[in-house]
């Protein structure tokens, strides 16, 4: 009781408010994280951008948001596919909404089209676009902020959709690989003995497999889709976290609270998950952002080498590869790598702040 411990202060001031409940460790760390401005703002920017990227279909899309045609309203961007004939266009397949907009304006019959702010789709080839003369890749222009790629697709649109794919991919790889690594590391550290001895040997073999090499071999034989690529990458990147988990479990298991839980007859699973895991989570959380950096740059590298996601998935690495094949098309190299750099830098700032908040190493120095 704070009041009884300090009667003098209590009597001097009107009834003292009760001492606030001590914050939980996690809450304290969260506060510390928020106090580290660089990391906190990076976190806000990155999560904001990622959240915004889910609205890309209405922000960056060749389909119109709203079409008013002869008294009826259509919502192609979020709704269903409309044939060109539905709006009286003489085209086969889907309507061309940019053309439709001009057409309606010329007609002046009260029909109108609202296009998304950036009216190009990442998969859309603009080779037949009358506003883009010459051969692709086109240099950046007022309409196409970052130019087009070698198939005449808008680079800026591909870049933005690629951002969402990269982050989703990275988070999935980190999540899956941490799940595998934590489970294996926890078992090795908890059970120890023979399991640990043989397990370590197997982990050593696994860690010496040249993982990009194997992904390249597999990728050269079949074009893996996103979930397979995530699984392959995760299967080869769980090793470092399993080492940390093994160490944590090994140390925590020898502590008294673990012995108490075991002697109360709790099952192995219960001891591992309810007692040891919460105490061994620090390295997991503080390493995750840096693993995310690794996962995203692996994806870009694989796409660059041609072993990544299936075309026509918008990808940063594929653009870079195109750019290096034609050294005069600087915009195909500089913009995607700039986007990757900015994204990774934000993640690194977040990671640095998380590490600082979770694992504060105060170095005491003389002088």
């Amino acid at each position, binding site marked *: 009781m704070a009041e009884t411990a300090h009667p003098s202060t209590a009597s001097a001031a009107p009834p003292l408010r009760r001492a606030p409940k001590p914050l939980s460790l996690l809450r304290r760390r969260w506060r510390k994280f928020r106090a580290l401005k660089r990391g906190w703002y990076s976190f806000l920017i990155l999560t904001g951008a990622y959240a915004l990227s889910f609205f890309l279909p209405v922000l960056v899309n060749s389909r119109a948001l709203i079409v008013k045609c002869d008294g009826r309203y259509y919502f192609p961007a979020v709704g269903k596919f409309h044939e060109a004939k539905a709006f009286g266009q003489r085209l086969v397949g889907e309507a061309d909404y940019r053309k439709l907009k001009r057409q309606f304006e010329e007609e002046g019959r009260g029909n109108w089209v609202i296009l998304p702010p950036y009216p190009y789709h990442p998969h859309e080839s603009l080779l037949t676009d009358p506003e883009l003369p010459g051969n692709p890749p086109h240099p950046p222009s007022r309409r196409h902020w970052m130019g087009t790629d070698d198939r005449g697709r808008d680079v800026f649109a591909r870049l933005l959709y690629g951002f969402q794919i990269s982050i989703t991919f990275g988070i999935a790889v980190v999540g899956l690989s941490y799940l595998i690594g934590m489970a294996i590391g926890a078992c090795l550290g908890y059970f120890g003995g023979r399991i640990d001895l043989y397990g370590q*040997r*197997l982990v*050593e*073999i696994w860690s*010496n*497999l*040249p993982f*990009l*090499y*194997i992904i*390249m*071999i*597999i990728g*050269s*034989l079949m074009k893996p889709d996103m979930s397979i690529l995530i699984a392959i990458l995760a299967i080869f990147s769980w090793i470092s976290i399993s080492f940390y988990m093994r160490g944590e479990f090994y140390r925590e298991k020898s502590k008294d609270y673990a012995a108490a839980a075991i002697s109360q007859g709790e099952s192995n699973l219960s001891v591992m998950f309810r007692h040891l895991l919460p105490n061994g989570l620090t390295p997991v959380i503080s390493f995750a952002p840096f693993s995310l*950096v690794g996962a995203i*740059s692996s994806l*870009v*590298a694989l796409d*660059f*080498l041609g072993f990544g996601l299936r075309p026509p998935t918008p990808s940063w690495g594929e653009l*870079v590869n195109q*750019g*290096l094949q034609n*050294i*005069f*098309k*600087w915009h195909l*190299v*500089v913009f995607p*790598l700039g986007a*990757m*750099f900015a994204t*990774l*830098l934000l*993640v*690194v*700032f977040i990671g*640095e702040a998380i590490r600082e908040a979770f694992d504060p*190493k105060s*170095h*005491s*120095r*003389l*002088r």
Partner: protein
Amino acid sequence: MAAYFARRLLLMIPTFLGVTVIVFAITRFVPGGPIEQIIVRMQMGGGRGESAGGAGVETSVAIPEAVKEELKKHFHFDKPIWRAYLLWLGDLLSLNLGKSYTYGLPVLELIAERFPVSIYFGLIGYLLAYLVCIPLGIAKAIKHGSAFDFASSALVFIGYSIPGWALGAVLLVLFGGGSFWNVFPLGGFRSASWEQLNLFEKVIDQLHHTILPVFCYALGGFATLTILTKNSLMENLGQDYIRTAFAKGLSERRVIFVHALRNSLIPICTGLGHAIGLIMAGSYLIEKVFNIDGIGYLGFTSINERDFTVVMGILVFNTLLILLGNILSDVLYVLTDPRIRFQ
């Protein structure tokens, strides 16, 4: 101690076998292997000959079964996988890595030819990284919390956020004579006219081709090495023996550079062993960006060509280097830290 390292060397064997078995199995089970590749090539060759003869129709030439059998026999595809692996292992023990069917040369010769190129760039790159990172790390530790520390940290973050090959791609576009400045060549190990150059021109030419790739190699370890140096020195500066040294009245310079620094370089020294595998293996990303014909690029092209004899050869080479590098790390550990006694 000798017994410990003898055991470590022996433990290399199961790891080595494990790695090669897994990759061997993958190369066997995946479709589109070397036999299919050769058959496709033969068919394409036949088709081209025919169209040149005026037929103009793409016909696929039927490959006689006997030839297919011959090919299968040559690549040991007619045997069960474990026998094929044992045969491969037997060849390996007699130092026969087989022959590449894309280059028509023995794999050993291919590797020996490209090895010096990879090691040239890798070694210079790592040396450069060590030369920059250790002094930088020391300076950051001594001036911890200062404006210099803060500014150089920004550099470290940037270095961590940009992979070496990505920087290489940007540098090539900027300085390779595309849309901006024409300062450096577009990669490669040396100019095509290398033989005609005199000694001075050779030196200039080699430097010209070296600067950009080496910069990218150095960037690879820049961030982690700098931070490692800094943290290691900071940790040592907080220790009791440093307090004692100060209490004896030694100068700050002597305490930091003689007492603390020697101990704090131990982790960096032992990292050297791990780096050796990386240096020698070459980075196929950087080699691909700069069109450097090294080990990494050889591995990349042979995977594309399904030339699995070369792939396995490079795998053997890289795995041995990495495993030996790990042991070398332990040796360095013993040499630099007299407290360590491996049992």
